[in-house]
């Protein structure tokens, strides 16, 4: 098992071939890694070792397939469920855990809840909690790239719930008007916390909403990594060639709760969940690889064992990380601290020093 941070981000560009054998196996490993991380994080939250977690299980093929169709120079504007995208962009698992813990090594310095990570080094913009706000921002970045004639795309990740948001409408509308190189990647996981997809819109599909903005809308089976990869690859090629934006709806199913603060049994039937799990994207890719003679059960068992061991080992290392410097509370509000903040920090420092002498 290779640590995800060391996996190469495939330099896929327009005209690149469909996912080949090695790329598929690599994608499968990443999907397993993401699932193992999810499973572990749900337990860690119950044990009180992390405060919160929002799993992506069920969305692995959508996230890894989309990521593999992107170039490293492309910009990702994620929501807060895009763990597998971050891993696929080359973010080390340790950096994810540092964020979940908010320790001294956390790239965002403990400023946000778990899952709201961001990594400038791989053009993975920091997530926020408000729904859909990243969509207009992704469009702005694409308009900037368009003006600089950079051959890149920006991709906004969001869910079915976000298609009801103001910024979904504003973002797709701007992108249609300005024909900027944007991909709108909607993971329709059928649930926005407890609200089913049919409560968001009367539209038969989400993808068809794109038509109203004059941009192509594509519906794919999000459990089929090939379909996702091909759709994003095509959208990317069109965007980079000046052909404008595309919306892709990847139909998936949220296997887990919305987050660790949620109990899906209140609104979801076991039957529906079991039926969805029949279409597990990981099981599907595994079966495909085995049927093609490219994978076997022994290797799979080993992969899972290694993935779980790596997750445990990496989390334990992150748990040993140093706590944040309490003085960092006042940093990064502004580039330069205002006199008001400096005064607040001075008072806080004095209290910290008193505390330190008392203990």
């Amino acid at each position: 098992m290779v640590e995800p941070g060391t996996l190469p981000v495939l330099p896929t560009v327009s005209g690149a071939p469909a996912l080949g054998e090695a790329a598929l196996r690599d994608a499968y490993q990443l999907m397993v890694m993401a699932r193992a991380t999810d499973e572990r994080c749900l337990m860690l939250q119950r044990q009180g070792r992390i405060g919160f977690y929002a799993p992506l299980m069920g969305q692995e093929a959508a996230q890894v397939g989309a990521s593999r169709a992107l170039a490293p120079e492309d910009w990702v504007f994620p929501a807060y469920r895009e763990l597998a995208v971050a891993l696929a962009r080359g973010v080390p698992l340790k950096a994810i855990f540092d964020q979940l813990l908010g320790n001294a090594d956390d790239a965002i310095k403990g400023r946000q809840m778990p899952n709201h990570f961001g990594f400038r080094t791989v053009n993975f913009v920091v997530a926020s909690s408000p729904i859909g706000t990243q969509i207009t921002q992704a469009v702005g970045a694409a308009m900037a790239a368009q003006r600089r004639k950079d051959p890149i795309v920006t991709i906004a990740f969001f869910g079915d719930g976000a298609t009801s948001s103001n910024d979904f409408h504003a973002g797709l509308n701007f992108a249609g008007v300005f024909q900027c190189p944007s991909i709108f990647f909607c993971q329709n996981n059928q649930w926005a916390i407890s609200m089913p997809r049919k409560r968001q819109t009367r539209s038969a599909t989400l993808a068809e909403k794109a038509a109203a903005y004059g941009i192509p809308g594509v519906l794919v089976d999000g459990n089929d990594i090939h379909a996702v990869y091909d759709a994003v690859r095509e959208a990317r090629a069109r965007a980079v060639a000046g052909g404008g934006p595309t919306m892709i709806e990847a139909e998936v199913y949220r296997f887990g709760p919305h987050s660790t603060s949620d109990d899906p049994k209140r609104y979801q039937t076991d039957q529906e969940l079991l039926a969805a799990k029949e279409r597990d994207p990981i099981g599907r890719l595994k079966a495909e690889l085995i049927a093609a003679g490219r994978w076997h059960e022994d290797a799979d068992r080993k992969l899972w064992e290694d993935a779980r061991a790596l997750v445990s080992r990496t989390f334990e290392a992150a748990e040993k990380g140093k706590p944040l410097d309490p003085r960092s509370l006042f940093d990064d509000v502004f580039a330069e601290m205002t006199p008001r903040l400096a005064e607040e920090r001075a008072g806080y420092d004095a209290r910290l020093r008193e505390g330190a002498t008392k203990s």
Partner: protein
Amino acid sequence: MTELNLVQAINRTLRDAMRQDPNILLLGEDIGVNGGVFRATEGLFKEFGADRVIDTPLSETGIVGAAIGMALYGLKPVAEIQFLDFIYPAFDQIVSELAKFRYRSGGQYPAHVVIRSPYGGGIKGGLYHSQSTEAYFCHTAGIKVVVPSTPADARGLLFSAIDDEDPVLFLEPKRIYRSLTGEVPDDTHRIPFGRARVVREGSDVTLFAYGAMAPLAAEAAETLSRDGVSAEVIDLRSLVPLDEATCIASVEKTGRAVIVHEAARFCGFGAELAAVLAEKALYSLKAPIVRVTGFDTPFPYALENLYLPNADRIVHAARNAVRAS
């Protein structure tokens, strides 16, 4: 030096900044072909083209959201919100996103966006073309709030806003866009944020104001001087960051404070300034702090002139403060 009014100063400053830095671009409603509803961007579309002076769809969340994305990518967008009264569709983008990007990313993703917006009453604009709701934004950590009151300050502060590495809400007092002219430097002299301007020195009472209220405070000071009351006038210029030192020093000298703003009194910016003076200059005060503000009503149309502070109200408040001790 050139004699300009405030909106001309803004227009010329945008032009000069854009000539110097190709990363600067403008976006907003009716700002391109039409030159802006107040003509603040007149001529810029012709000079810089549609790629740098972008007429957008009618969506404030789209304007600010897109401006954030542009800034993250490395451009320097200056967004126009046609009236401050119409900024609320973008409130989420400003408060939840723009103001927090640097902090929430641990410094990885600063988002330098300037949002220009005409604000305030006095143009018979009714509820939705008149309000002064700067306090909503001052309350949010991570965004600077700046209000010029003269053409020269508009230029110097706008240059600083465009230079700044943080988001800036640049509020333009539309009532005095054209009513006042002044000498404006032709060079690119910057006026730093957090430095209040002492408009007039005095010893009996300090009148604090900003934006369109600053010339009224100066007028009130003139009237007061005829009565033998020496009023100091301070134009705050930037509300965030606030020049507390100048405010406190003035009150330590005069012992009396009258705070003037158009915005409603309750939780208006004057409440913060009064609190600062109470916390840090209480023992210098000879009279209670007085606020001369808009009323705690929605902004009226026909009775606008009764709602808005004027020089008489300021004079009256200052006289009472002086008589109180």
